[in-house]
């Protein structure tokens, strides 16, 4: 059984060169650091910021009836099947059998109904033998995708204690500081690979990257403007599609045609390319829309280029120009530099913007994660968060989405600036990393190379 000379030649020229592809290992503790410091883990707590970190944590602890896959399509979660009546107002969801909360109690239809009522008091939710019926006050053809939002995570609330049915149970919770989660062996979707996850909260980006470099963390957040630099320094950086929206949002509707012209002048004066290339170090994309092009396929129709000539023409047509205040989040260094650049661009057109930390400003610089991978749900949620009219979707999916978003932009309440990529730095032993295009992490699929089986 001697190999031939030809085989030896093959051996020299064709061996696999990269580290082996291997099956996931079980075990170990994944150590995370994050900037946010939530005081509550309750998915229905509307006072909590709708940021990436809260979303990622919520999905570890709480199941939703429906989940969205990476293409934004609804998949069964705690609900194994669903049906809708003609009219899209009355939905029936069958609860997956044999699922328990972390305290061992069954996830019953009563518990699911109670949780949904807490999350949305406007819905009528009834428990049936094997499921729940949700009656909405208006046709809601996208209800499954709506129910995939983290705020509809199914939680049992009793005696001030919060319990979920997700892949990880809360082991220790020091609000705003530290959270330790333990993998559930009996999770219906299969036990997560790591045994536990430890999350340090309230850490600045700098503290996080130091913790990673010192081997005290396995996974940390990286600011969009720092991702390129962190990668150049040899760190392992994983980034999402542009999934965070940054925009200027006026506190009220335009009161006159003149004010509309000034808003148009401001929009035309913004040098988004420069903001992205210089301030963000390429950590995003210039945006002319609320939803990014990868989600809609039509965002390129909306211009993002600076046009100083048209901006000045629009500005010069108005005799009395007010001074606008521009509010931003003072705890966000990136928001500060972008706000200052916006004011600078506006000045080139003859508009005066005064930056302020106050929440009572004429316009605010807003940063929001894309709420959903379903484009219609994402647009509706963004509109609701900004206090804009709810978009209406009539006709075929692409055209109706385009019409709805065009209508929101024509209101001149928002001036889109950028879509930012989220980024994470990972240690070399973190495997199976999965991130959805909207920046959501799937940590239940992560495993550690050093973990013992």
């Amino acid at each position, binding site marked *: 059984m001697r190999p031939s000379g030809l085989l030896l030649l093959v051996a020299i020229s*064709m061996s696999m060169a990269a580290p082996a592809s291997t099956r*996931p290992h079980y075990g170990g503790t994944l150590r995370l650091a994050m900037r946010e410091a939530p005081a509550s883990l309750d998915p229905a707590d509307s006072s909590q910021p709708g940021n990436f970190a809260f979303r990622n944590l919520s999905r570890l602890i709480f199941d939703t009836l429906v989940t969205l896959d990476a*293409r934004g399509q609804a*998949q069964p979660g705690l609900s194994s099947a669903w049906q809708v009546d003609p009219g899209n107002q009355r939905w029936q969801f069958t609860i997956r059998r044999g699922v328990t909360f972390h305290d061992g109690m069954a996830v019953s239809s009563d518990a699911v109904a109670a949780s949904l009522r807490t999350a949305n008091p406007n819905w009528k939710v009834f428990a049936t033998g094997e499921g729940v019926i949700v009656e909405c006050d208006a046709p809601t053809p996208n209800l499954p995708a709506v129910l995939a939002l983290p705020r509809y995570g199914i939680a049992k609330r009793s005696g001030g204690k919060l319990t979920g049915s997700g892949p990880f149970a809360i082991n220790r919770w020091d609000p705003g500081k530290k959270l330790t989660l333990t993998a559930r062996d009996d999770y*219906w979707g*299969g036990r997560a690979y790591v045994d536990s996850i430890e999350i340090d909260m309230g850490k600045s980006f700098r503290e996080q990257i130091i913790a990673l470099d010192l081997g005290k963390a396995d996974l940390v957040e990286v600011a969009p403007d720092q991702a390129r630099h962190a990668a150049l320094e040899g760190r392992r950086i994983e980034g999402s599609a542009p999934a965070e929206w940054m925009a200027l949002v006026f506190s009220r509707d335009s009161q006159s045609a003149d004010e509309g012209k000034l808003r148009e002048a401001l929009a035309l004066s913004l040098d988004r390319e420069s903001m992205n290339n210089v301030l963000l170090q390429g950590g995003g994309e210039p945006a002319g829309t609320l939803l990014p092009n990868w989600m809609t*396929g039509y965002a*390129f129709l909306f211009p993002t280029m600076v046009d100083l000539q048209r901006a000045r023409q629009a500005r010069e047509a108005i005799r009395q120009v007010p001074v606008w205040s521009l509010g931003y989040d003072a705890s966000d260094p990136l928001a500060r530099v972008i706000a200052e650049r916006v004011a600078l661009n506006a000045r080139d057109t003859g508009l005066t913007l005064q930056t302020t930390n106050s929440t009572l400003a004429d316009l605010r610089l807003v940063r929001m994660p894309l709420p959903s991978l379903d484009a219609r749900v994402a647009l509706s949620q963004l509109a609701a968060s900004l206090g804009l009219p709810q978009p209406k979707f009539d006709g075929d999916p692409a055209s109706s989405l385009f019409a709805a978003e065009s209508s929101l932009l024509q209101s001149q309440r928002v001036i889109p600036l950028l879509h930012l990529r989220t980024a994470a730095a990972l240690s070399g032993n973190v495997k199976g990393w999965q991130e959805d295009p909207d920046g959501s992490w799937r940590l239940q699929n992560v495993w550690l190379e050093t973990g013992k089986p």
Partner: protein
Amino acid sequence: MRCAAYNSRISLATATPGMLTLLSSRFVSSVVLVLVSLFAVPASPQNWAGAEEQLAGKIVSAIGPTTTAPTTMAVVVLNRSPLSTAMTDDIRRNLLTQLAVLGIHFVPVEQAAVTVQVSLSEDLRSYVWVAEIHQGANASSVVMVSVPRPAALSVEPEAAAMVLRKIPLWSQPERILDVAVSDGNPARMLVLDASGVASYRFQEGRWQPEQSLAIVHSRPWPRDLRGRLVLGKDNNKDHPFDAYLPGVYCRGSAGAPPAMTCSYSDDPWPVGTDPFSLNASFTSSRNFFSGVLSPAVGQLTTAPAFYSAAAVPGEKATRWLLATVDGQVHLLDGITDQVVEKLGWGSDIATVHSGCGSGWQVLASGSREGRGDSDVVQAFEVAGREPIAASAPLDVNGAITALWTESGGTGAVAVLHNSETGRYEAFRLTLACGH
């Protein structure tokens, strides 16, 4: 009430001819030829399901009645998606044809009453074709259509010393654990997934669904679910197959209709194939074999925990290679358990009888530099202790999730998770002798 459609299995009406399989060695040449011709050549003109016609209709509607008859138009098509130049040209040609049918007359831009810029874009799920229509001094209008994105095509590898051939068997959105094809007239195929065993009969040039047998279990499956199908010996009609899943054993039985009985079981799984049998205990809450072997490999009754095993037949005895959980490859010769250094193999290995070289080769999964999360499979000869590459690595468009030697040993069934489509694809791997 009407049911919301989600997570549906592949529609057989849209199943591609690639779901053929190699039925038996008698048909190797002809079937491979058919499959190579179907999968190796560039795609034939894509069926865009009338999208060009739809877009042309929307453009003409948006223009409305014009003062000139026929309407003169200039059309520019820009590709903002991964569509190939050939496909873009194809779409442009078909769109112009449809517009001409609707009475549009094409002229250079400077003579056109209407100019249209069509952008071939995409969103998360579909291609989105957007037409911006400019008509005189009017504000431009926009119309669009969305077109479902088709699955990617696979391509045969280059020829090498031994040629590893990849023959598509089946594709579905749900994770495939194993596939077994039995000879006969008609041939039958069994597909094992988390929900059960589905059987298909080869008729009229494609696999037609025959029956689905559900696996009832109350314990959750592990996240990296594995399973194995073993056909009954000598086409045993009373006991056509066994299915092994973590903590569950299912026995297929003939009858009218055929049935399957499942029970909780920690019995060892067969990891070899005739004539080289070896059974190993599977850890039911994880994704690996515990290392307890039966029968023993020579004097060895235990080995390190492992993911997969491959027989290495020899003149005197059969040795076994194990891809162990710690990332190494162990060679069990019946007396010693030795680590084979620096192979770079992945977790999945299997033995294939090719008749080339030493007669038996080991297939191993692995990764190739710069290929991201896409794996490769490569054949190796194992003479002495050092496996030596016997074929070029075969690129697969995704991660290998299963690799099992087929009953009979002439091929292996591999399952990959296609990184582009998100679907699971099972295919048969065989080795052809070199030139």
